[in-house]
């Protein structure tokens, strides 16, 4: 089942044409990975999926991005509400400089939630596989957590506003292999309830955790296919050259 659809998407940073005629689908309760060399447009595309690029001046977007068949670039779209439905976790863990508890409740409070906050904190920390490690220190500053814990806190914070889709922009590139393993396990769990899109530089990570993979090069989507197909017998020889390390 399709959750998001990208139609003829083009994006320019000033005169630089960063995304060229992108067409693809994001399937519900699946993990979709974007791979490609630096500057290929994969992060730009993921940021189009919740209009994060609106925050950058000089960006011009053409084309459509549908979320449950509704174009998120339509004029009547409430961008704050869109980003609640399509959450994002960034490369570097970025907890707010406040307590663990407040990090989770910040978003829901902003959206008007006043009751059941403690239950929410417990539930979301459990979903993010962090509860057992922090349940006795909820009042402690989130900045004191380890990098891997901070990243899982950011995931819990994202889950707290109950999104449909979660975008991960290189979520493990600042983490050690153990923390990376935990995040990967977590993504595998989360896809039961959420639709996930991930940008990664680590091709083995894409192979391990994603169901679909898109290979980007110079702003073009060169191949979009099932991950198992991409990593055993890709259709496009350019994809093969990139994933086997012969180029990129």
């Amino acid at each position: 089942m399709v959750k998001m659809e990208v139609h003829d998407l083009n994006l320019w940073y000033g005169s630089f044409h960063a995304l060229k005629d992108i067409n693809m689908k994001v399937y519900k309760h699946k993990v979709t990975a974007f791979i490609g060399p630096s500057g290929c447009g994969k992060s730009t595309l993921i940021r189009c999926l919740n209009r994060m690029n609106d925050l950058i001046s000089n960006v011009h977007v053409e084309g459509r991005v549908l979320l449950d068949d509704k174009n998120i670039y339509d004029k009547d779209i409430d961008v704050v509400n869109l980003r609640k439905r399509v959450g994002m976790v960034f490369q570097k863990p970025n907890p707010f400089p406040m307590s663990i508890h407040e990090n989770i409740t910040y978003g829901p409070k902003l959206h008007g939630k006043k009751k059941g906050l403690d239950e929410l904190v417990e539930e979301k920390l459990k979903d993010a596989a962090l509860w057992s490690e922090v349940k006795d220190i909820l009042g402690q500053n989130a900045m004191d957590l380890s990098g891997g814990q901070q990243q899982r806190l950011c995931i819990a914070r994202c889950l707290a506003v109950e999104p449909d889709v979660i975008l991960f922009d290189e979520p493990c590139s600042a983490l050690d292999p153990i923390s990376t393993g935990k995040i990967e396990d977590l993504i595998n769990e989360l896809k039961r309830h959420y639709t996930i899109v991930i940008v990664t530089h680590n091709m083995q990570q894409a192979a391990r955790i994603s169901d679909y993979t898109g290979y980007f090069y110079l702003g073009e989507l060169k191949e979009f296919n099932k991950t198992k197909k991409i990593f055993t017998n890709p259709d496009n020889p350019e994809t093969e050259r990139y994933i086997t390390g012969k180029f990129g």
Partner: protein
Amino acid sequence: MTRNKFEQQLAEIKRRLLSMGSLSEELIGQSVQSLKDQDVELAKKVIASDKQIDREYVNIEKKIMRTIAMQAPVAGDLRLLLTALKNATDIERLGDYAKDIAEITLRHKDEEYITKLINIPRMNEIALNMIQISLESFETEDADMARQVHPLDDEVDSLYDRTFRLLTTYILENPKNISQAFSLMLVARHLERVADHALNIANRTIYLKEGDIQYI
């Protein structure tokens, strides 16, 4: 980004596998020659050389495993390593068949053969040709060349059936022929299997090139 060390490792694995393949092919030829000529010395040489193939098989398997572990290959590189691993097993079996045929030479070294050996050398000739083509197709990664092996396997199968029927008549004629007829049946069976292993190697070249496993 290029991966020179990895490329070198792949080339090395391929080179050693092809050299092991050539040795196996030579041993099969020599084993049948020893049978035909009742050449005891040649048979003993084949038996000793099989150990060399067994050792090389272990080394190649270790090298492939290390390369997979250290280089995390995908797509064409992964298919090449899996193909090499499976081919190594097939080639090692070829050595075993050569040894078994050489042992049969030794078993009947002082006997007069119950029949002139015609089908067996013919099967041998075709099977050796199949090994040659399949190894070359692997070396050059040429799927079309690999497909040339398919009809040859049918020829070997048909010669095997004929040989089996012929040797059965010798058994029925005279029970004294049983021991030798069984041995020759076994040689024919081994050669039929040699052809099957050559076919496996050829089919894997098709898989390597086209990524389609249905030929296996």
